[in-house]
């Protein structure tokens, strides 16, 4: 894969569109009439800097809707940085600078008229360590709807919270203790609470930054199930250290190395038949 391919308007066309189609058809819910998946996020020539240090070099990548895309690569390869470019979380870091084009539904997120507040309400994010606010479970989920003024009445808010918790598969476990503090839950529950919190504002994209790295295997399995579930409605981007996880949950995979996008494509293909030797080395565990 050539990294700085300016003509990557439709990178999913061509040789690897076939296996993708089969993949999509295999999941009946997402199967659209079109054989071409919708492109949700389109990135071209993205560079990122922390002060003097360049962290990303000319990333161009298209991310499809209603599917899971995994970013893999060794530590410090820029995959988290790239993830944070999508919802402009890098704005909060002093000295961080992003250039290039990132479009969601055709609109540049770095555009002048773009309000990061609105952007982030459309692009949810889940972090490495579960970070519920020190509030009740209910208030945690209600946080987003409250600040964005999504609910007009108390009962509507309660409904939104319930829907979000149900979708995150947490409702049955917490329905009777919504007023208890969110940090009283177990790690896995906390992470699902955080996902529910992100879902509650009805985002279109969900970014996940190593969501399972702080969890035990059982909790991890539940989260992975949840991700697979959510894929039917959202465009999901997940950064992971675990190649097994990438293989389990994602349909497409992008491999980053030293701030560059080395290779991306169908997950199966990346894992079974990588084109780049560096990818091969990483996947087989020579480094990373």
């Amino acid at each position: 894969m050539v990294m700085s391919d300016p003509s990557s308007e439709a990178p999913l066309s061509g040789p690897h569109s076939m296996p993708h189609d089969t993949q999509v058809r295999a999941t009946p819910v997402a199967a659209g009439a079109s054989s071409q998946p919708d492109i949700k996020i389109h990135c071209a020539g993205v560079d990122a800097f922390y002060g003097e240090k360049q962290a990303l070099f000319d990333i161009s990548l298209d991310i499809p809707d209603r599917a899971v895309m995994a970013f893999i690569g060794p530590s410090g390869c820029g995959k988290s940085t790239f993830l944070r470019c999508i919802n402009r979380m890098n704005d909060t870091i002093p000295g961080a600078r992003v250039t290039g084009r990132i479009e969601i539904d055709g609109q540049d997120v770095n555009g002048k008229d773009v309000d990061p507040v609105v952007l982030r309400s459309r692009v949810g994010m889940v972090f490495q360590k579960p970070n519920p606010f020190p509030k009740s479970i209910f208030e945690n989920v209600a946080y987003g709807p409250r600040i964005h003024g999504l609910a007009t009445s108390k009962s509507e808010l309660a409904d939104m919270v319930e829907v979000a918790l149900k979708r995150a598969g947490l409702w049955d476990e917490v329905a009777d203790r919504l007023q208890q503090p969110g940090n009283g839950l177990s790690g896995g529950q906390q992470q699902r609470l955080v996902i529910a919190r992100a879902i509650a504002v009805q985002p279109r994209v969900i970014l996940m930054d190593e969501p399972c790295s702080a969890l035990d295997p059982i909790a991890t399995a539940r989260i992975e199930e949840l991700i697979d579930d959510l894929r039917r409605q959202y465009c999901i981007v997940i950064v992971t250290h675990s190649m097994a996880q990438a293989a389990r949950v994602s349909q497409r995979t992008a491999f980053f190395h030293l701030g560059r996008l080395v290779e991306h494509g169908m997950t199966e293909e990346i894992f079974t038949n990588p084109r780049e030797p560096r990818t091969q080395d990483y996947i087989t565990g020579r480094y990373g």
Partner: protein
Amino acid sequence: MTDPHLSPAAASRLKARHAAERRFRLYGQLAILVALGFLAVLLARVVHQGYSTFWTHSVTLSVYLDPARIDRSDLEGNNFDYLAAGDLLKRLEVNDDALGLASGEAMDLVSRDIGFALLDRIKADPRVIGTTLTLTVPVKANADLYYKGQIRRETPAEDRKLSNRQIDWLDQMKREGLVKGHFNSGFFTRSDSTEPEQAGVLGAVVGSALMLLVAALIAVPTGVLAAVWLEEFAPKGRLSSFIEVNINNLAAVPSIVYGLLGLVLFINWLGFPRSAPLTGGMVLALMSLPTIIIATRASLKSVPPSIREAALGMGASRTQTVFHHVLPQAMPGVMTGVILALAHALGETAPLLMIGMVAFTPGLPETLQSAASVLPVQIFIWENAAEAAFHERTAGAIMVLLAFMIVMNTAAVILRSRFEKRW
């Protein structure tokens, strides 16, 4: 974003949210502005009122020591000020009236220094009687204020401290070059006095230095060693946590309470002298002890455990590890804490009032046990003084005190910034 077709309700809500955000940010900026504004006003006020302290005026007089008017049998009984005033009147070509009113008013323009200076010269060598001596002495405080424009001719005569005649004379003296303005070195070489033009900060500075020395000699070793014990040796348990709580609370005890402790313990029970640098220093030592302990502990904590392990691994004992490796590494942080604690002690006033440091002390303290004044208390005393000339001296003394504080704080900041680079 992403959706250019926000509903009107959502759009207006968003607008309101951003307005709230800007307001909130503005509150923050206003708060900073208020705090820094107060600082600026405070410093400006002090400088505005105090800068004139460092400039003063002196008058040069040639006094004929008329043998007929000097009683050799009782030198101290002679009124040399009067003699000098007569000389001044002669220079001004004014004839004294029968009651000596003119001489009296002239005397009020020249510092009493001239009398003492003449007396000293005669005592040193009686043969000067009959000759003419030329001396330069400060003008009286009110005359000085007139030259500085703080007493004005336009003010109605009954509202100012100088009569019309005196003002005429002052103008004349200035014209004839009798009076010269110069840097007020006397402010730094003299001690407290009831006469503003003779008052300086030297006694207070020396007193403060002595007191700080005592405080440092007691508090620094005790505080550092106590912190070393608590951090490196003390068994972690009830005792050490009790001591820790104790120290944290001591650090927040009002300073005036330390003054009461000093009054009862040192003065009443142990019979220490009142108003002495020794007593004051011990009170300040007790006061800064908790701060020094807390700072030292924080600094010891920040030394990475790997250094301890390395030394212990070489077969050093715990004591050797601490004193050869950990403490030297922590030293910059310790020194920062110590300097800040001492700077704070330097500016402390209330506890010293409790141990009787408000007494008027004209000279320099001779020993640690003799009465002394210190800078902050000197400021307090001058602030209460009635004479207008003490007002500028109050601010002048504050400038001296702040200069010391700024030097100490800068030293601490420099040390800290060096220290921070290390780990």
